[in-house]
């Protein structure tokens, strides 16, 4: 049910643009094979780009010459995603926009070395997303709720990292605002230390975690003994996840109320009320001034080549608050709940391991090197909203509206190195909620909308010889199996072609599709969110 009268024509026009873009982007691949003017011009272009590094030449080098102890670097990245479907109402959303993002990100990274052992690091991000300004869309109004969706405008977001490190052979002390990535695998299993800006929702990829993690102020101490290490974290500064909000491109279409209602209702927009009319009180968050509210983590890594393994424990807060029902009122015959979002304590226990070997005499390929990775996180005391209990509270049996469960998320990955620099990864992941029941909502680490989810990811990537490996293409399929109630929640497929224009400039074209599954399923709800993106990155 499109809002505009000619979705077919619009679709065709869009396809033409996509084809043109593909042609322009990929047209140069045949350079070594093609003869004539085009090849010669491309050669000139290549040689020009080989030394094209204006920011390096006019900014980085002069700064580093003036301050020899300083390392200065950065990048500018423009990345855009455009929907392949026309404007239409999907669930509760006015999907009347085409650009999911038009993001411009400038990163400036500096390292000042006071001595061989002491260094100060600072990473700054300047981000602007034109999606909210450069297209007319009633469905995109998220900056009314939070301006950071459009532009990073405050210290918290601009100064991403600022820390002082002191290193000796056997000891590291890193103090300040930083991000930590625990784990060895793609995806988030024991990578749970920092909160995440999940503005892209289901489209957030592991390759973007670096820019989407939300660094926190902490003390990070590591003791190295032999090839092993013991890492302690003390995190007084709590950061919560930032999820898609009303009026942002990836806000779930299955969540009420409709955009027309939200736009007109400041309380819902601001998160002070929900669709049922309940009052949402101010979120209670852990305090940096209270030692009892701090987070603590410990990680042991052991290297016993060809096996390496590690264990973690993290005494943390849930990065997403749980809604606690704290009161009930009847107004005009309708029952309204009083809800207080609160972060709750979690105990994370994790393990990670990897092992490598090479098989010889494998038919067709001869030698076949492989790597096996395993990772798991068991989380205790996760609060799940329980709709039966919420209903009971609404009916007068006042209770918190939630239950406590343990969850497990784990994965095993096998990576193969096939001929032609072809990498293949098979990575089945499991999300599981212990003692699950149908009335449960979602909770950290647990299955989405079910007792268990099984996500067998398949990934293949290879460079192309005729482009002298400047072109790489990868394909990822992420099917989402589920049980015992939903069975199948759709599949996400991603095709990426990346091309090195020079050692400073890289371009990527990304096609992402969400197929099958029901309108309430994790991928099924985004059935009309298939998109093509492009990304241009210049590093200096």
């Amino acid at each position, binding site marked *: 049910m499109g809002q505009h009268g000619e979705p077919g024509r619009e679709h065709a026009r869009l396809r033409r643009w996509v084809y043109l873009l593909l042609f322009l982007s990929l047209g140069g691949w045949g350079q*070594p094979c093609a*003869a*004539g003017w085009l*090849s*010669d011009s491309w*050669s*000139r272009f*290549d*040689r020009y*780009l*080989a*030394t094209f590094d204006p920011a390096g030449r006019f900014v980085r080098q002069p700064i580093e010459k003036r301050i020899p102890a300083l390392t200065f*670097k*950065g*990048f500018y990245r423009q990345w855009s995603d455009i929907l392949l479907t026309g404007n239409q109402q999907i669930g509760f959303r006015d999907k009347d926009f085409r650009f999911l993002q038009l993001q411009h990100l400038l990163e400036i990274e500096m390292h000042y070395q006071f001595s061989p052992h002491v260094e100060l690091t600072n990473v700054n991000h300047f981000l602007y997303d034109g999606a909210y300004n450069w297209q007319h869309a009633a469905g995109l109004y998220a900056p009314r709720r939070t301006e950071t969706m459009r532009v990073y405008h405050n210290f918290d977001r601009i100064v991403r990292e600022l820390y002082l490190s002191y*290193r000796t*052979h*056997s000891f*590291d002390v890193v103090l300040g605002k930083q991000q930590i*990535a625990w784990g*060895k695998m793609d995806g988030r299993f024991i990578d749970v230390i920092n909160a995440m800006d999940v503005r892209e929702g289901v489209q957030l990829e592991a390759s973007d975690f*670096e820019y989407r993690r939300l660094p926190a102020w902490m003390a990070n101490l590591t003791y*190295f003994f*032999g*090839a*092993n*290490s013991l890492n302690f974290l003390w995190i007084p500064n709590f950061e919560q996840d930032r999820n898609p909000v009303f009026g942002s491109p990836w806000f779930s279409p299955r969540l009420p109320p409709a955009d027309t209602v939200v736009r007109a209702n400041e309380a819902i927009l601001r998160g002070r009320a929900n669709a049922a009319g309940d009052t949402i009180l101010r979120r209670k968050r852990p305090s940096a001034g209270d030692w009892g509210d701090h987070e603590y983590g410990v990680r042991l890594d052991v*290297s016993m*080549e*060809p096996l*390496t393994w590690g264990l973690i424990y993290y005494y943390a807060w849930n990065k997403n608050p749980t809604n606690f029902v704290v009161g009930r009122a009847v107004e005009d015959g309708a029952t309204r709940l009083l809800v207080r979002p609160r972060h709750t304590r979690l105990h994370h226990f994790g393990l990670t391991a*990897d*092992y*490598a070997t*090479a*098989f*010889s005499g494998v038919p067709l*390929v*001869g*030698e076949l*090197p*492989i*790597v096996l990775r395993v990772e798991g996180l068991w989380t205790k005391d996760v609060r799940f909203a329980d709709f039966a209990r919420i209903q009971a509270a609404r009916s007068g049996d006042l209770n918190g509206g939630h239950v406590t469960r343990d969850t497990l998320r784990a994965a095993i990955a096998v*990576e*193969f*190195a096939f001929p*032609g*620099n072809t*990498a293949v990864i098979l990575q089945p992941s499991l999300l599981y909620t212990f003692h699950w029941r149908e009335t449960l909502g979602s909770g950290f680490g647990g299955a989405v909308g079910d007792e268990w989810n099984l996500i067998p990811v398949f990934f293949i990537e290879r*460079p192309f010889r005729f482009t*002298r*490996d*400047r072109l*790489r293409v990868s394909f990822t399929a992420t099917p989402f199996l589920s049980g015992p109630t939903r069975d199948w929640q759709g599949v996400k497929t991603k095709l990426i072609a990346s091309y*090195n224009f*020079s*050692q*400073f400039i*890289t371009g990527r074209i990304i096609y992402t599709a969400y197929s099958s599954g029901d309108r309430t399923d994790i991928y099924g709800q985004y059935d009309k969110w298939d998109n093509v993106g492009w990304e241009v990155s210049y*590093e200096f």
Partner: protein
Amino acid sequence: MKKALAIVGSLWLACSSLVGWAAENSARVKTWKTVEELTEAEKRDIDLRTETPRDPQCPYLPAEPYPFQPPYTAEEMGYCSMEFPHISRWSHIMADAYGSLTSGGYLNQGITIGLNYYMPGSGMRGYLEHTAPGQEYYRLVFYYTYPPENWGAQELWVLYRTDQQATTKLDYFTYFPSLRRVRRQPQPRRGERFPNSVQSFDDIVGRDAWEFSWRIVGADVLYETVRFPTTRPSITLTDAGGHLREVPATQLKMMGDTYPFYTADGGVPCYVVEARTRQDWLPHYPASKLLYWLDRHYFYPLRIEQYDQAGRLRVVEVRIAKQENPALEDRGYAALITLYYDLSLDLMSYSVHDAHTVKEWSETDRKTLFGPDFMRRGWLMYPLKTHSLVRTPEEFYLRPLLYPDKFPRERTIEVAADVAARIQAQEAAGHLVFGAVGTTLTGP
């Protein structure tokens, strides 16, 4: 008609180009000899047998203990040349400036600081006598400082001696600042070139002589290996003390300044030996054979040619070496500049091992620096500098000479017409010439 003319034209161009690169070395008299052409005096130090007594414990090794005494079989020369892989067989640090260039001028370069810990003492002897198959013998840490995209990326290579049972050659870990985690990677396929490079894993870590069958092909005198273009008259090199010096390209000798066996006209006498891939050791290996030009005295490989499964020359590797570890005397030579050329892709890669410093690692260093976890710290403990990158595509090294006239019975060389034309243009200009065949070839 037009098509026929085009074909004739292309053939003419190809023929004239082939004549051009065939004549590339015609200025010199014949420098090479087959085995049959060697004099008795020249044969005095070589043993032409291909079947020799075997070591009773380890049958794939010769019975004669290493280091061997003359006369040398081809196999023994192969073992001696194992002293000199791309990365030296002793503990050291260095700044490795490397890069690749396509025929169109796409230049991709990098710098990595290498911290290298060779475990079984220095040289081959420790490898042969103190390293059992399946046991590790070398730990290499690479810290990338250029280009900006790779700044802070690191790799750890843990190398193992292999045999037919223990086939894992490498434990391979990477760290990327953008991932902030150490990741174990599958070991690279040994004979397969790295993306956007001519170099393969085996080119870097060296090949074990027992995986090949050896035969002496003849002798030769080399006068040039790595060649500089006229557009780059000098190179900036860094010594072990960190001092920079501008070295004129003409002053760079193939075996360095201290090598005592140059001929009067500056050549290096070499044996030419063939290493044919043993299918029982390396099935599906991309190279069917390699030809080595080994200097006659230390068996340093100044030129290595790799042939594909169809027997055609695929890759040429040439080196400029330097005495970097005087304590090891004749075994202390290391690659200073190495150039690789893939004929089928018309792709070149180079590597300059700059600021080479012999290093005796302390016990603490050994324990901490060379483990996967160390990479997470992002600590560049030895910030060595190198200024040996190529500034522009036009200043890249010349394609190595192909010597189509040498050992024609042993060497099958097929060069595409457009590549032959570029080689001819390069030889005429004294620098690389870019652009398409049939259009105006452009250069600096």
